[in-house]
């Protein structure tokens, strides 16, 4: 029996994940400034002389797809490896991905022409002669595109085994083999009897009240079909056929009309047989379009980063049950893409750590550091490369961010209220395998109160098994935490040289009592 035609480019065993992904997507996008990444992924890069340039306007389909898929983590180690392999392969064959994406877009266009938006609407169609014809045309279009995809994949040389693209090629060879394709083409051609004229014959019995009963479809042949009955090729043979015994002309209009209805029924019944296959194709294209768009997004993001001279690598995932993180050359890609510079990078070796507390000088790069961690984690969890020379981390089902919002930095009780409400939202959804990134939380109240709140919250989260990364000014809190520190806690500070200059690097260090605001004061106002 013929197996199903699946796309399965992004998952080894399914088209798209059923889970909704991270709980608080909007917060993540806002706090980690992911828009820049989405934009970079959705703007095609082209060569202008020696340098690469990005088109100013993004492709919204890619933008939406990258946005959607980046925020749904791939949680199994094997599944993530599968995703990484296909992304790697995509980076090796950028032209192939572009072709596949364009083919997928044409499927989208076909659906739009048929006036079908969304899956529900597609399933609902099938009644009424006009819609039946629409479905038939859509099916023909899909079959055409499927053939094209098969050709594109077959034409690509050097596609290495062990990734989704290679698997798709094998699947098409097996589940859409030449015999099946030819058989399907014959049926689709036969069905033209309805649209372009031809012959249809039925076997009929007598039922209740002399109505037709037990109607079987005997034959259908398109008049223009060369693949059909050789006897029916010429017009002459059709005419000859007609003047056989028992042939009558349908003179009454009502009879002709009903005969047409009869043919419609035959057409519909044949189409009904094809509907499961149509569904299969429609589902394939639904997924394929998205997969191709995501892969093209990865390709374009990589090209963009390369054009600025940013390096990236594929991360490795730690075994289940292990905690901690190790990386080198980690930078914040959003800022780098925006400012077109190679930013300061950081390294850390924090095996088994679950609590990261960052303190230190203002303008020392603390927030950027926290953001780079979050972005790398998200990119890793969707199977992408990460903005680091080396990265090794765990997988988190959920990532939460709690950043102080600059736009509302007035200090009043309403703000703490708002902050706590956001925190309540996090606590409501947080699970053991979550990563919570806190940036300057509870800075909207006094240090004393803030420290108490933070202490309770952070210890509760930490004791609950949650991984917490925190940038804080609340030194009382940080020092207290440091005093009772455990092995799985790491304390970092913005590096400050003896002369007071900042390197924007984070180093392991006990929280100190000053935020080096004085440095800043001296630099800007002078002694």
């Amino acid at each position, binding site marked *: 029996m013929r197996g199903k035609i699946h796309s399965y480019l992004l998952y080894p065993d399914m088209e798209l994940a059923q889970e909704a992904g991270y709980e608080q997507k909007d917060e993540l996008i806002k706090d980690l400034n992911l828009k820049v990444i989405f934009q970079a992924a959705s703007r095609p890069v082209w060569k202008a002389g020696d340098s690469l340039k990005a088109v100013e306007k993004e492709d919204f389909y890619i933008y939406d797809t990258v946005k959607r898929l980046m925020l749904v983590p791939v949680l199994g180690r094997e599944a993530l490896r599968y995703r990484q392999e296909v992304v790697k392969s995509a980076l090796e064959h950028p032209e192939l991905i572009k072709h596949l994406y364009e083919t997928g877009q044409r499927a989208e266009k076909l659906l739009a022409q048929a006036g079908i938006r969304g899956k529900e609407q597609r399933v609902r169609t099938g009644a009424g002669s006009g819609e039946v014809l629409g479905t038939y045309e859509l099916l023909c279009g899909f079959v055409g595109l499927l053939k094209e995809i098969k050709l594109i994949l077959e034409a690509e040389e050097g596609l290495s085994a062990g990734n989704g693209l290679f698997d798709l090629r094998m699947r098409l060879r097996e589940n859409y083999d030449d015999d099946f394709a030819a058989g399907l083409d014959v*049926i689709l051609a036969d069905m033209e009897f309805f649209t372009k004229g031809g012959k249809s014959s039925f076997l009929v019995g007598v039922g209740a009240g*002399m109505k037709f009963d037990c109607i079987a479809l005997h034959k259908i042949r398109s008049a223009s079909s060369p693949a059909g009955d050789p006897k029916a090729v010429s017009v002459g043979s059709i005419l000859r056929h007609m003047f056989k015994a028992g042939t009558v002309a349908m003179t009454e209009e009502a009879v002709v009309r009903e005969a047409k209805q009869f043919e419609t029924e035959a057409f519909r019944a044949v189409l009904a047989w094809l509907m*499961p296959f149509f569904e299969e194709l429609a589902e394939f294209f639904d997924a394929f379009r998205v997969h191709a768009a995501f892969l093209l997004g990865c390709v374009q993001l990589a090209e963009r980063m390369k054009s600025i001279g940013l390096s990236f690598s594929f991360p490795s995932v730690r075994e289940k049950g292990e905690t901690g993180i190790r990386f080198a050359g980690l930078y914040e890609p959003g800022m780098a893409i925006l400012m077109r510079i190679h930013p300061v990078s950081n390294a850390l070796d924090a095996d088994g750590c679950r609590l990261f507390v960052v303190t230190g000088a203002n303008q020392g790069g603390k927030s950027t550091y926290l953001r780079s961690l979050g972005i790398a984690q998200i990119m890793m969890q969707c199977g992408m490369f990460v903005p680091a020379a080396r990265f090794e981390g765990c997988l988190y089902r959920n990532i939460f961010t709690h950043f102080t919002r600059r736009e509302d930095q007035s200090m009043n009780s309403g703000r703490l209220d708002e902050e706590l409400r956001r925190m309540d939202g996090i606590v409501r959804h947080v699970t053991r395998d979550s990563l919570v990134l806190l940036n300057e939380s509870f800075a909207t109240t006094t240090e004393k109160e803030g420290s108490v709140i933070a202490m309770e919250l952070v210890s509760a989260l930490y004791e609950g098994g949650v991984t917490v990364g925190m940038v804080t000014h609340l030194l009382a809190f940080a020092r207290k935490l440091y005093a009772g520190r455990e092995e799985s806690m790491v304390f970092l500070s913005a590096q400050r040289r003896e002369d007071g200059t900042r390197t924007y690097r984070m180093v392991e260090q006990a929280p100190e009592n000053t935020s080096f605001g004085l440095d800043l004061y001296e630099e800007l106002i002078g002694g």
Partner: protein
Amino acid sequence: MRVPAMRKGRGFWKFHMENEGGLCYNVPVGNEERPQIIEWGFVMEQENLWLLGYPEEFYEKAVLAPGFFVDLNMDQVVAQIMAERREYDLRKYFNRMPEDFSVTKKRQETLRVLSDTELFDRLVRFSDHMQCARGYAADYQAAERELCRQKFLLDCGVQYALAVSVLSEVFSAIRQKTDGFDGKTLEAGGFLGAFAKKAGSYTEGEEYRDFCRDTESLSGEFGNMRFRVEFAGARMRVVPADGEETGDYFDTLRALFPENEKEGRVVRGQLENPFGAKKEVGELEFFVLTACQKKYPDSFLRLRGYEQKHSVQKRRELTVQMREKGLSAQVRVPGFFAEWVLVFEQQLQVYLAVELFMRKVRKLGYPLTYAVFDREGKEDTGKNPVEFDGAYDLALLLKQGSGKTPVVCNDAYYAGRERFLVVTGPNQGGKTTFARSLGQIVYLAKMGFAAPCSYAGMPYFSGLVTHFSVEESLETGRGKLKEELTRLAPMMNEKQGKCFVILNELFTTAATYDAYIMGKRVMEHFIGQDCFGVYVTHIQELADGKEEGKACTEVQAARIVSMAACVDERDSHIRTYRIVRRAPEGVGYAYALVEKYHLTYPELKERLAGVLRDN
């Protein structure tokens, strides 16, 4: 013989007897054009048998449900029972209770026989064929083209013959199960046993056998007809197929998509008739048939003969509308229907519906039992003359289904000279539900159906009287009291014989003392009539016959039993919905007021639950 597909959802048929022995069927007409009345020609039988114990006239005027239906939520239960056979209109059969003990007893027997699934399934099949046959009979009347009309008569005959043959299978099965065909067997088979003899003589009669022979051979001829129709442009070709041509385009599709069938997808192997919605043949079909007629002249000739032999000319009463349509008073109707089969079919549905319903309730894990009446042979069971064990509210059970909280079962009995159960206790404690469940048992037991309890023993009550206060009524004070008394008066004045009486919260708007006196007198009246009853009330003094010494004697006091709704022993806010024999709980006056206005803690919780959930 090829059987046409079953025709479902044909609507229900009402009928009544006519003087000259014709049955009139009123066919409810949807949007279709159909004659309003169809008459049947048949020979009136000498002896009439009724599966429900009474002829159709008995139920004819029972358009309205009895007064206690709504009070007992019996309307909900009956609606569910009727839903089991929604093709028929059975309402009238539930609206009247049997008046003879023997009928009730025989109904019980009949239902016991039907619990045999094989027998039951056969009777459902019989009904299906009958519905089909009646549908074709209507089509026979309505069809305009002669050719189709004749065929409808044949189709009708085929279905009728099938129905009768299934029915005789049923009777022979009953015969096999019991030894002989004596009086004992008849008793054992309930009403069904009585029909067995009749069915035997009917099917062996020469007239019926002749009809069967004709029907079978002719329907075989038409069933085997097969021809090929080809379309090409504006031309068409019709040739007899004679079974030689077997080419099927679906075979091609099947070969290409074998998974379609293996995965159990709904894929048709046949075409549907695009004109299937219309009962009559369309232009194209007629065009083809005319061509066919020339090829099978014999069969069509014999079909004409069949109609002449097996239909009768009838005169019918024309309504104004029918006259306007220009319909003739002379009409041909199928001549082969036997009246007893038609009535049997209708009344049978009540049993089928009840049996299906019982299966559903038993599946939920609740017992249904046939009542034991005190007229039956007195075996000493150690039970009181009136006793209900494990009684539960069937309507409540249907509403809650199986998943949620279980429905509580309660016991009740009347020992010696006890006549009234006075039920007191907190609101929402299950008092009304308890009273309802007893009423349901009495009704269902008298109907001859199984009742919602594990044991029911009772005298053969002549009727059921209920009086529930109408809570929705906007009237208060004197207005409401007057309304209650107006409803109560006819119940007390009529001579009802030995009734079962359910009184629920009488005179709530009157002063407590007045209500007490009035309640006492109402009870005394019913006790004087030798009735049994339940009285649900807040007035605890009513439960204690002795308290107001002058109002009643010692003897009367012994006739009143106090029962109370229980609360959880540890937390008085938790209701257990158990009603047990005991003196009323003396709660404080203030709390009683709170309860009266539904302001206790659990009630408030319940009332506010909807509001709190939104936050």
